[in-house]
C-alpha cells in the first residue's frame, strides 16, 4: 500500500497542466468551437486515451486518463464533446463491430466529425430497460424501426445513434433485442428536445417512424443486443473518478467562502457550530469518495474490472452529491436558487455536469439526476445485493415467457 503518485505520474500531471495553461480556451460559445477544442485535445493525445492504439487511441493507463480529467477539472477546462461516442459507442464497435464498421466509424468518433447518441431508454423502459418496445422489422437488406426513445443525451446534435430495438417479441424479453447503428439524419427520425427541471435540454426524445437501418449496421448477431449492452466495457472507466472529486472540492471551498460572508444571528455562518458540523461531515464524505476513487484506480491499474463494485461507487457518489448540494443550498439560502443576478461573491465558478460555468441552482437541480440515470440508486442496491452479497433474487414476473 503506497498512496503516493509515482514520479512518472507526477511528471505526466505536470505536462498536462502546462499544456492546459497554454492551450485551454477561455470561453466556448458554440458547438463548432467545442468541436475544435475536442479536436485539439485529441491531437494532443488527451482524448480517447484509453482506446487501443490501432484504433486511434493512446492505449493509456487508467491513471493517466484520470490525471488528464482531474487536471481539466482543476483548471476549469471546458468539456470536450461526443462523450457517449468516445465512452460507449466506440468501445462497443471495437469489441463487437465488423472490420468494415470499425473502418467506417471509429476515427470520426474520436475527432467528433460524427456525433453520437445512445438510443436506449423508452417512456416505459427506464430502470427496466429490457422491457423496451421499439421494434426493428427485417425487410431483407434493411430494417424498419418504429418506436420512441427518451432521455437521449445529445440527441439534438447527433449524427448517429447506437440503438437497442426489439427484433423478436416472441422470446423472453432479454433475448429479443438487437443492437444497431442508426443514421439520425433521415425523414423517419424526429428529434425533440426534452426540457428538464433545470430549464435546460441536455436530453431529447426521439421518435422513429419507418426509420431505415441497413443490415450492415447491425452490431453483433440478431438477439444479442441485451448481452452487448450489458458487457460493453468502456475504455474511459475510472476516467472521471478523480475529476469528480476535484470539482466537488473546489465547490466546497467556494461554499466555505460564502459561509464566511453570510451571517445568522449577527455572526458569520462559518462560526456557527451547527453549520461547522455539517461542513465537517460533508468534507469527510467527500474525502471518503476520494479514497474510494483511489481504490478503484488501483484495481483498474492492475487490469481488474470492478464489476458490480461499480454499483457501490456510483451509489456512493451520486447520493453524496445530493447531500452536498442540499448543504450548499442551506448555507446559501435564497442566493442558492438564483439562476440570474447572483452577486459575484456567491457565484459558482465550476459546474458539476458539463464542466462549464454555471449556477448553484443548476448544480443543485442537476444533483437530482445522478441517482436516477445509468441505473437508479434502487437498481444499484439490487445489483449490490444480488451480485456482491449473493442474496436471493426476488421472484419477478418478467423472468418467464415472452414480452406479450
Amino acid at each position, binding site marked *: 500500500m503506497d498512496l503516493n503518485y*509515482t514520479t512518472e505520474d507526477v511528471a505526466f500531471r505536470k505536462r498536462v497542466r502546462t499544456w492546459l495553461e497554454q492551450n485551454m480556451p477561455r470561453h466556448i460559445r458554440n458547438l463548432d468551437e467545442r468541436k475544435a477544442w475536442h479536436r485539439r485535445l485529441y491531437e494532443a493525445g488527451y482524448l480517447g486515451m484509453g482506446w487501443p492504439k490501432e484504433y486511434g487511441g493512446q492505449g493509456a493507463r487508467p491513471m493517466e486518463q484520470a490525471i488528464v480529467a482531474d487536471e481539466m477539472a482543476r483548471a476549469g477546462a471546458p468539456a470536450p464533446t461526443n462523450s457517449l461516442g468516445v465512452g460507449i459507442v466506440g468501445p462497443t464497435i471495437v469489441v463487437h463491430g465488423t472490420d468494415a464498421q470499425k473502418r467506417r466509424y471509429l476515427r470520426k468518433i474520436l475527432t467528433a466529425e460524427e456525433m453520437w447518441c445512445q438510443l436506449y431508454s423508452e417512456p416505459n423502459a427506464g430502470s427496466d430497460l429490457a422491457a423496451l418496445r421499439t421494434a426493428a422489422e427485417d425487410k431483407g437488406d434493411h430494417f424498419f424501426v418504429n418506436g420512441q426513445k427518451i432521455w437521449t443525451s445529445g440527441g439534438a446534435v447527433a449524427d448517429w445513434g447506437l440503438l437497442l430495438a426489439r427484433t423478436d417479441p416472441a422470446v423472453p424479453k432479454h433475448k429479443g433485442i438487437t443492437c444497431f447503428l442508426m443514421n439520425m439524419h433521415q425523414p423517419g427520425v424526429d428529434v425533440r428536445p426534452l426540457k428538464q427541471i433545470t430549464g435546460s435540454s441536455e436530453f431529447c426524445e426521439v421518435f422513429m417512424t419507418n426509420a431505415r437501418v441497413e443490415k450492415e449496421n447491425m452490431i453483433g448477431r440478431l438477439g444479442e443486443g441485451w448481452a452487448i449492452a450489458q458487457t460493453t466495457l468502456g475504455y474511459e472507466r475510472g476516467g472521471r473518478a478523480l475529476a469528480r472529486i476535484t470539482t466537488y472540492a473546489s465547490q466546497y471551498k467556494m461554499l466555505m467562502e460564502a459561509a464566511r460572508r453570510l451571517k445568522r444571528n449577527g455572526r458569520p455562518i462559518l462560526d456557527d457550530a451547527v453549520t461547522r458540523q455539517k461542513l465537517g461531515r460533508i468534507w469527510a464524505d467527500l474525502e471518503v469518495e476520494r479514497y474510494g476513487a483511489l481504490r478503484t484506480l488501483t484495481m483498474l491499474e492492475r487490469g481488474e474490472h470492478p464489476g458490480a463494485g461499480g454499483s457501490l461507487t456510483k451509489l456512493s457518489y451520486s447520493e453524496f452529491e445530493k447531500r452536498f448540494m442540499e448543504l450548499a443550498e442551506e448555507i446559501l439560502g435564497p442566493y442558492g436558487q438564483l439562476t440570474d443576478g447572483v452577486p459575484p461573491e456567491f457565484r459558482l465558478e465550476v459546474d458539476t455536469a458539463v464542466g462549464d460555468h454555471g449556477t448553484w441552482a443548476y448544480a443543485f437541480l442537476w444533483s437530482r439526476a445522478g441517482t436516477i440515470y445509468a441505473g437508479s440508486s434502487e437498481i444499484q442496491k439490487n445489483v*449490490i445485493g444480488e451480485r456482491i*452479497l449473493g442474496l436471493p433474487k426476488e421472484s419477478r414476473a418478467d423472468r418467464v415467457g415472452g414480452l406479450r
Partner: protein
Amino acid sequence: MNFSFTEDQILLRNSVRAALDEQCTSAHVRAMAEDARGYSEALWGEMAKLGWLGLPFAEEQGGAGLGLVELALVLEEMGRAAYPGPYFASVVLGGLGIQLGGSRAQKERWLPAIASGQARASAALLEDALDWDPASTTATAVRAGDSWRLSGVKRFVPWAHVADVVLVPARAPEGLSLFLVDPRVAGVTITPMVGIDLSNRWSELRLADAAVSADALVGSPGGATGLLESLLRRAAVGASADMLGAARRCLDLSVGYVKVREQFGQLIGSFQAIRHRCAEMLLEVENSHSAVYYAAWALAAGAEDGAMAASVCKSYVSESARKVCGDGIQVHGGIGFTWEYDLHLYFKRAKALEPLYGDAAHHREQIVRGQVLHSDK
C-alpha cells in the same frame, strides 16, 4: 499509487484471523466477560509469540518494525472477533505513546516488555468533562524534590486494572506534561467503570499526591501537547479499524441470516426492503475500509493530510459502524435482540468505541478548524 495490501499484509491478516477464529470464539468472549481480569493469559502469551504485541515497535526493542497499516489490519481482526483483552490499551495507547515520545531509556525499559507480553500498558487520556482536547487537562503535577506528585481524576482508562504502566497527562508549572505512572503505587486508586461492551474494561483512575520519579517524565515538562495529539490521532484510527471489524462481522452475520431465514414463504433476503438495507450496510463498510486504511497510511507515511485523514476516518467510521451494527439487529429481527445470539457483542464493541478518541462531532470540528486555519494563512 497503490491502494491495495501487499502479500505480506494479506498473510498477516489471514494468520491473525485464523488464530482468533480458533482461540477467540464468541464462547471465549462470553467467558472472559465473567472473568475477574477479563482476558486470557494463554491467548496473551500466544499473541506475544506471534509477534502481535510488538508489531509497531522497532526490532531492537523486540518489535516487528511494522507500521500503522499492519497495526490497523490486526485491530480490524480484533474488532471482528470482539477480542477481550488489553491489546489496544497496551500496544496502541501505551506502546505507541512511549514510542512516539519516550526517551531511549524509557523505550528500552517498556517496549520489549510490552512486546513480550510481560508488561501491559495503557493511557489515561480523558477526565470528567470528557473533552479530548489535551488542553482541557486539569490533573496537576508538582515537583517534590527529585520526583513529582500527581493529583487528579482520570476516566475511562482502558484495562488499568491489569496495567503495569499508564501514561498520564498532567499540568506542571511549565505546562501540559506526560508521565509514566505505575498504577499500583500509593496514592493511585482504581475503580471499575462497567459499560455495556462485554469485551472491554475501563476504570476510573484517581491520583492523590501520587509520587512518580523524575525519570517517569515523558519528553520535556510542558512539552506534551504535540505528542498527545499524535497519539490521539493514532488511537482514533486504531479504534476505527476495530469498529470496522465489528461492523463487517455484523454485515456478514446479517447477510448469512437473511439467506436462510424464511417468512411469507420466501427467504427474507429476496425482499428489497432487506436487500437494500444490506447493500447500504456494505457501502458503509467499504467506505469505512477506505477511510481507515487511507488514514493509517497517511499517518505512517507522514503525509501532509495525516491529521485531516485521521479526523475524516474517525468521524466517518464512528457513525457508519453504529449504523451498520444497528441495521444488523434490525434485519435479524427478534433473534438479534437476544443475549444468546452473538450480534450484540459486536454492536456493543462498536458502540463503546464510538465516543472514544473523539466522536464524530469532535472530529468534524477538527476538520473545519484545520481548513479555516489553512485558508487564513
